[in-house]
């Protein structure tokens, strides 16, 4: 039981109840969090790869990726730093499409990115229409500071799992911590269970 903070009332947001995970507040802005400088990879040097644990895999250049069927996704997103943003609209390619073409197997994926960032996810969380490689936001190309040219979009997990500047997925048999996960953040990151830090 938390001690009552004398004199604290807080701001209530009844209308958002049930829609916002515990410990989150809604923002209309789109805050930016990254560990380092924003990379700027030119599109003619950009590619996206799906690779297997023992090599193999498939790679798409920008034109090839953009030629794949794209979807429009509207989702609520939840950052571990406690902001949530409702009804965000994205355009991207379903990870299912990419994995189908690659034809590799595994139980987990490690997303890897320009700038060296990585994050780990169970394969089941990036398949079944729950994850995208997103290159559009609100009908415009995705801003570099928000992860453009393309970022992973996995809205049902805390947003650090939606890796910015994503360049590929490595399939793995066993789970392996990514960047923030090695610094004490949760291996899975379910916002509805408040899995912010290791041990939650």
């Amino acid at each position, binding site marked *: 039981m938390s001690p009552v903070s004398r004199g604290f009332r807080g*701001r209530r947001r009844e209308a958002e109840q049930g829609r916002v995970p515990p410990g989150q507040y809604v923002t209309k802005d789109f805050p930016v969090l990254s*560990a*380092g*400088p924003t990379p700027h990879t030119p599109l003619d040097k950009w590619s996206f790869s799906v690779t297997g644990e023992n090599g193999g895999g498939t790679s798409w250049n920008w034109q090839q990726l953009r030629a794949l069927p794209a979807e429009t996704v509207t989702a609520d997103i939840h950052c571990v730093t406690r902001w949530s943003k409702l009804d965000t609209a994205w355009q991207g390619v379903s990870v299912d499409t990419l994995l189908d073409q690659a034809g590799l197997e595994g139980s987990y994926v490690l997303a890897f990115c320009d700038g060296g960032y990585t994050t780990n996810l169970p394969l089941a969380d990036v398949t079944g229409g729950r994850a995208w490689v997103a290159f559009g936001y609100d009908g415009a190309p995705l801003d570099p*500071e928000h992860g453009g040219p393309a970022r992973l979009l996995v809205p049902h997990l805390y947003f650090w799992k939606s890796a910015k500047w994503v360049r590929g997925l490595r399939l793995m048999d066993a789970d392996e911590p990514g960047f923030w996960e090695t610094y*004490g953040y949760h291996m899975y990151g379910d916002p509805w269970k408040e899995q912010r830090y290791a041990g939650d």
Partner: protein
Amino acid sequence: MAETPTVHTIDLDVPDWPGHRAGQHLDIRLTADDGYTAERSYSIASAPGEPVALTVERLDDGEVSPYLTEELRAGDELEVRGPIGGYFVWDAARGDGPLLLIAGGSGVVPLRSILRHRHRTGATTAARLLYSARSQAELIYRAELDSYRDVPVTYTLTRDKPPGWTGRTGRIDQALLAEAAWPASQGPLAFVCGPTPFVEAMAEGLVGLGYPPARVKTERFGATGG
């Protein structure tokens, strides 16, 4: 303790605090009498080995910071979780190249922890601080920062030029950055903290000066913080 009219330093007595590293943050949770809670992260302002201190800027549209800066009294109980974060940290024992610290506004808080840590441990790692604030009145820790004789501090004010001001004015541009920063050839390690547009500009500027991206650690806060 008031650092400025809107920025307060709060000393916490945390039982069983496991200790923290310079640059880490913690979470504070407030609970109303009907069980409603609000939680935000704050950078730790004190050095490792010192009691936990936070320096909190009151945000007009904030939910937690107005409480911490205006309502909270000595003796009140707070729910604290931490320390958190292991990337934006500096350990005196590791050294790791000359330090370049760049602060925008209250982004100076975790950098002050780094400078105190450096000072308390007698570390010989060279350090420089470049600190941008809107006005002279909004500079925090000024006396302490000036007391570190071996740390050159470059202040710049973006919306103020008070009489007698000997620091810089205006936003940090590439020329000032190049002048204040260690040359990339010396293998510096940079820590940049402030609002997002500030951090974006500084990090990009450092990469332009030849800093490898992995040597530029950033911490950003949005205007929607706490």
